[in-house]
């Protein structure tokens, strides 16, 4: 079987569901003949017809809004935002409607839909093309927020997202769209949306990261391993609802934790994870939960983008501080 990229795994999942479920409709800007600006929908219009794979006019608020309307009538819309930086005009429909229709109508109408968007920095793109503001969405009750970090997880999680009876924000780390290949059987098997994935086991330190930042996080773990320090690496994948128990289980072993994300630090998801660890596992902790994140500034134009993104060096530095931490206070 051929090895495929994360990007191709997305396409494979979309094709699988288009074939399996006549209610599935794929739409967005340039998803048709062009196959999407990243080619995530490559060949789908040709294969499934322009009635099921549609180019929309240029309006993200519209894309989000019509998806809501479609979903309430039993379709399974899968809408693409061309880049996460262009999802903001759509927030109202996502937050006020997609996430609330079921609750508002006491279950009478619901929004089984997927909003996909390539996200994150690191591809030398123009302004607004490198956003990672997942924390805006993880704060919204009623949503699921999912970020795959490998071809297999992209395939299995996207299947799950499309089949999920509720709205899912599916953020695709475009920096690793083509970074690695993997065999991904097209077997229609979904992955769970309520479990963290433990990518690497270890007992000395827990590293938590998702999306493209796992690249540097795993590299840091390798480096630590070379020094005899075994880091456990956890990919939550589904950022909301978050499976904190897998994290706590890990901390039972490691007692030390570093969270890594590209997004700005203040109000990023790292804070929530740290707070929950604090709440669930305060007694376990031998060091404060540390964060390695994007800075609290606007993602810079590309010349400085790698100065902004968490690097292996930054992760290692904070990991070492966390490992070396010895309580200095009274407790």
């Amino acid at each position, binding site marked *: 079987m051929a090895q495929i990229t994360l990007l191709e795994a997305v396409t494979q999942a979309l094709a699988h569901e288009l074939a399996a479920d006549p209610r599935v409709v794929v739409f967005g800007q340039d998803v048709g003949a062009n196959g999407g600006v990243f080619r995530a929908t490559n060949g789908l219009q040709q294969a499934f017809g322009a009635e099921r794979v549609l180019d929309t006019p240029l309006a993200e608020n519209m894309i989000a809004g*019509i*998806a809501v309307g479609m979903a309430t*009538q039993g379709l399974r819309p899968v809408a693409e935002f061309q880049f996460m930086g262009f999802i903001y005009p759509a927030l109202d429909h996502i937050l006020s409607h997609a996430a609330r229709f079921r609750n508002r109508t006491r279950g009478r109408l619901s929004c089984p839909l997927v909003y996909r968007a390539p996200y994150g920095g690191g591809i030398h793109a123009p302004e607004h093309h490198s956003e990672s503001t997942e924390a805006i969405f993880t704060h919204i009750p009623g949503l699921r927020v999912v970020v795959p970090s490998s071809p297999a997880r992209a395939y299995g999680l996207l299947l799950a997202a499309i089949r999920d009876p509720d709205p899912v924000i599916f953020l695709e780390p475009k920096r690793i769209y083509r970074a690695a290949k993997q065999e991904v059987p097209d077997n229609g098997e979904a992955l769970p949306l*309520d479990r963290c994935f433990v990518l690497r086991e270890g007992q000395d330190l827990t590293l938590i990261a998702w999306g493209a930042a796992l690249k540097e996080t795993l590299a840091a773990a390798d480096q630590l391993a070379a020094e005899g320090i075994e880091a456990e690496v956890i990919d939550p994948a589904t950022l909301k609802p978050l499976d904190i128990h897998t994290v706590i289980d890990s901390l039972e072993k490691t007692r030390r934790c570093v969270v890594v994300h590209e997004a700005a630090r203040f109000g990023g998801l790292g804070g929530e994870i740290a707070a929950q660890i604090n709440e669930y596992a305060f007694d376990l902790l031998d060091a404060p939960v540390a964060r390695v994140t994007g800075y609290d500034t606007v993602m810079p134009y590309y010349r400085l983008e790698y100065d902004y993104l968490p690097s292996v060096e930054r992760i290692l530095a904070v990991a070492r501080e966390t490992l070396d931490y010895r309580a200095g206070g009274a407790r």
Partner: protein
Amino acid sequence: MHKPRMHLVASFDIAHLQYLDEQGHATQELPDFATPDTLLAMYRQMALARLVDDRAVKLQRTGQLGTYPSTLGQEAIGVGTGAALQPQDVYCPYYRETGALLERGVEIEEILAIWGGDERGQNYAHAPEDLPLCVPIATQLLHAAGVAFALKYQRDQLGRPARVAVASAGEGATSKGDFYEALNLAGVWKLPAVFVINNNQWAISVARSAQTAAQTIAQKAVAAGIPGLQVDGNDVIAVRAAVADAVERARNGAGPMLIEALSYRMCDHTTADDASRYRPEAELAEAQKREPLVRLGRYLRAGGYWSNEAESELQRELAEILERALADYRDRQKEPPTAMFDHLYAALPEAFLDQYDELAGNGGS
């Protein structure tokens, strides 16, 4: 500079439709549906809407209901629109909707429940596929475009019957991008969607003239390349005729349409508003002369189809209906606090069980 020569590339006309003038005289031959029975049925629904609105405002004043938006003076729009639809069509309302909801079979008690702070009111027993009331202005118009897509798709791809999505909004809503984006999409995708605008001249305190420099709201259709029509929104026959036509047109695959129904908000914006702060007295007095219920009543009386006795009998009957609904509304128990999690997701994710338990009083933090 001398005036350059240009050539014409496109031309557009906006028309206005009326059947009954302010005195209730027919200004042209009435459409086929306008039999005495049909007109009486619509008269009844408008009267009921007025009664419900009136009582709802009183309930709010006495602390028995939350903020409520009356449709006083605009009953012909909701009733005319609702009456123009088939049951299988999907209605996508805004929030000022008493008449239309009644036509769609929504219970008075459900309407009261919504404004009484209870989501269960949106779980319509008799209009299972209609969208719920929509508060964020103009957003329902995009939902309607999506619904229209779904209906078209279900017909074309899944062999279901032809159905139409009909949405409503106020004229203030036509300033918001959603309105335009919905029309534009419906136009280019030729969706079976009809957009009905209740132009009641005010968006809370902002007058129609401060919303847009467009001479009519109907002409906003030109931007989307779809037909736009203005109707006398106090003439329930005109509203129903125009909407029914547009709906059948859409059902037959001819695409969407925009209808502007001219009326006047004879009430405060909602019970939270005090229109005397901004509305010229004279304007209201003028509007009074054009209102839809009296107008249709005049026509019916002139034709011998209506009388004082019939009116008293109707009011008695409607009052009874209302009292029954009020009793149901008052009997309604508050949901348990855990209900706020019952329909958040299809099944509550594990991550929120702690909070559910806390609400249930079973501990947790």
